[in-house]
């Protein structure tokens, strides 16, 4: 896929969407309107969007606990995502998933999993489905530096390698698994070095540069699509906020100096400057994009705030797929106590 000027502007727009979306989440959470733990993508927009724009809309994607940005990067509608974060019935998961488990099948997002590393085998399986059905799809898998220490990572990469699956593993190395630094917890200098153990290419790129990520992931997608098997791309990035909203970790595990150096390289304004310098974007258009994105996020918040909470009875619905099981004959069903097993 070629990065035309319009695609570059779209790249910027999606990064901005994630930034404004999560800033709105932060505000809503401050007002007590986002229940549970919310993990913001802020700081990591470049790697998310760079990778998502290197795949097609119908390619599969699997995220993790820090995943507000992934469906947005893949082009999801903001309204239903925001409604989900607020636990509303119009939410993309109908209020059953929340911040850590967003899924939007309409953009290929097969769901996020908050058990660190557990999405990696799932993405691998989606790649297996693509290979078996021959539909030419690719599976894009996002996980962090912490997840690369999980057995699931190693088992899944081994499977993908031996079966030459069309999978692209993107490690979002934001340097910390909650407070534990990757430099202390990962046995190699770069997570991408682990690719060698599975006989697949591994590359480490600047995760704050969306074009660098796009190019590395794009090369991996090309390989996958050509039947040449999986790749691992490590994007070095940083989360600007605490691990989760509302969390106040007493120990200072990140120095002011370190945080400051990453904030200076904030990917969103620096990409805007770069597009302006290159003449892709002028100030007027940049402002217009910003206004459009702000309006989109405001509409999403309004939609979410105005949406109803699910009826409490909905807790008992949807445990199984909607096809009515032929299991219990009507005469017996009448005797069955009300329970999700027969829902």
């Amino acid at each position: 896929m070629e990065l035309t000027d319009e695609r570059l502007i779209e790249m910027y727009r999606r990064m901005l969407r994630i930034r404004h979306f999560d800033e709105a989440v932060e505000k809503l959470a401050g007002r007590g309107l986002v229940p549970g733990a919310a993990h913001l993508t802020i700081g990591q927009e470049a790697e998310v969007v760079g990778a998502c724009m290197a795949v097609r809309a119908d390619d599969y994607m699997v995220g993790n606990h820090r995943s507000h940005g992934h469906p947005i990067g893949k082009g999801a509608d903001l309204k239903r995502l925001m409604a989900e974060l607020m636990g509303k019935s119009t939410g993309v998961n109908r209020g059953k998933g929340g911040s850590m488990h967003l899924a939007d099948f309409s953009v290929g997002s097969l769901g996020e999993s908050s058990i660190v590393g557990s999405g990696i085998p799932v993405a691998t399986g989606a790649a297996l489905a693509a290979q078996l059905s021959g539909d030419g799809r690719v599976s894009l898998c996002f996980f962090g530096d912490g997840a690369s220490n999980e057995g699931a990572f190693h088992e899944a990469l081994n499977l993908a390698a031996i079966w030459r699956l069309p999978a692209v593993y993107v490690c979002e190395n934001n340097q910390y698994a909650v407070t534990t630094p990757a430099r202390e917890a990962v046995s190699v200098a770069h997570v991408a070095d682990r690719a060698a153990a599975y006989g697949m290419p591994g590359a480490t790129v600047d995760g704050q540069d969306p074009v660098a990520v796009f190019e590395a992931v794009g090369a991996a997608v090309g390989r996958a699509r050509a039947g040449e098997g999986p790749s691992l791309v490590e994007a070095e990035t940083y989360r600007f906020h605490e691990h989760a909203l509302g969390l106040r970790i007493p120990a200072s595990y990140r120095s002011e100096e370190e945080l400051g150096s990453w904030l200076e390289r904030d990917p969103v304004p620096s990409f805007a400057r770069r597009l302006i310098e290159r003449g892709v974007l002028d100030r007027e258009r940049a402002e217009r994009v910003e206004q459009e994105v702000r309006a989109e996020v405001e509409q999403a918040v309004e939609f979410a705030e105005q949406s109803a909470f699910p009826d409490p009875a909905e807790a008992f619905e949807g445990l199984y797929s909607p096809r009515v099981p032929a299991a219990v004959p009507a005469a017996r069903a009448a005797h069955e106590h009300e329970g999700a097993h027969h829902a």
Partner: protein
Amino acid sequence: MREISYLKGVYEAQRAEMLRDDRVFLMGEDIEAGVFGSSAGLAEEFGRARVRNVPLSENGFLGAAAGAALAGMRPIVDMTIASFLYVGMDQLVSIIAKATYMYGGQARVPLVVRAAMFYGGSNAAQHSDRPHPMFMGVPGLKIIAPSDAYDAKGLLTTAIRDDDPVMCFEDATLWARKAPVPEEEYAIPLGRAAVKREGSDATVVAVAGCVPHALRAADALAGEGVSIEVVDPRSLVPLDTAAILESVAKTGRLVVADPAHRTCSAASEISATVAEEGFGDLRAPIVRVATPDVQIPFSPGLEQRLYPTGERIADAVRSTLGAVAAR
């Protein structure tokens, strides 16, 4: 009608569904070789893409099966020994059981997980588990536990066609037992118990390998003039509580036999349900016949006496009849 083994029933269900639906495929360790026989010859017939050997990585390949199911395929995963399920527990509990609900109905997980309860053969503590009750406590999983070749073929057929994850606990003590099975395909609905023998004095609800023991107990007690009804739930989730309550309403007495460890067994759940919903029909306390809460030892003399037998079930029935006499 011809007779085939339990394992052959499993084989026939898999083969018929693979012929019927291109999306159905098998995954498992050593599945091409078909170590225990349930997939023998299928790799030659359907090719290695649809009969896939997997490396030893239970969590990895269960997760891959889940991902393939989310993307529209219909995998059957043969875990072989049931204790290997624990290695893949994260995927089973956090992904496979939860995806449909947690993703708000966008996901379907048409996945069958087969696991053999491989007890009674001196394979000791780590290879002899009967862990079906553990998974009954995980909403979202359907669980079948066939007790003969006919049910194995019919229930597994339904499981493969089902759009939800179904765990099939195969009782390996029954693998070689033969029963009359039609050659053509048929599907037994989940959540419907079978009365394996009609009777009037007491109900024995028997799970998996306990069913033949219960039938033996019924034969023995018939000689004493006692008439036993044997109910096989066949699927534990959904559980046909109506059929169990109906039988208890008729007999007034209940013994529940389950090869699992006693605490929080399927027998416990069935007993609790009848105590809650059928108390008025009971004329004696419910008795559970299960495996005591100890590990499974290696030496045959230590192991064999731990599991439910026809004699233990018959004694339990006698005790419920005695409880009436004592009133």
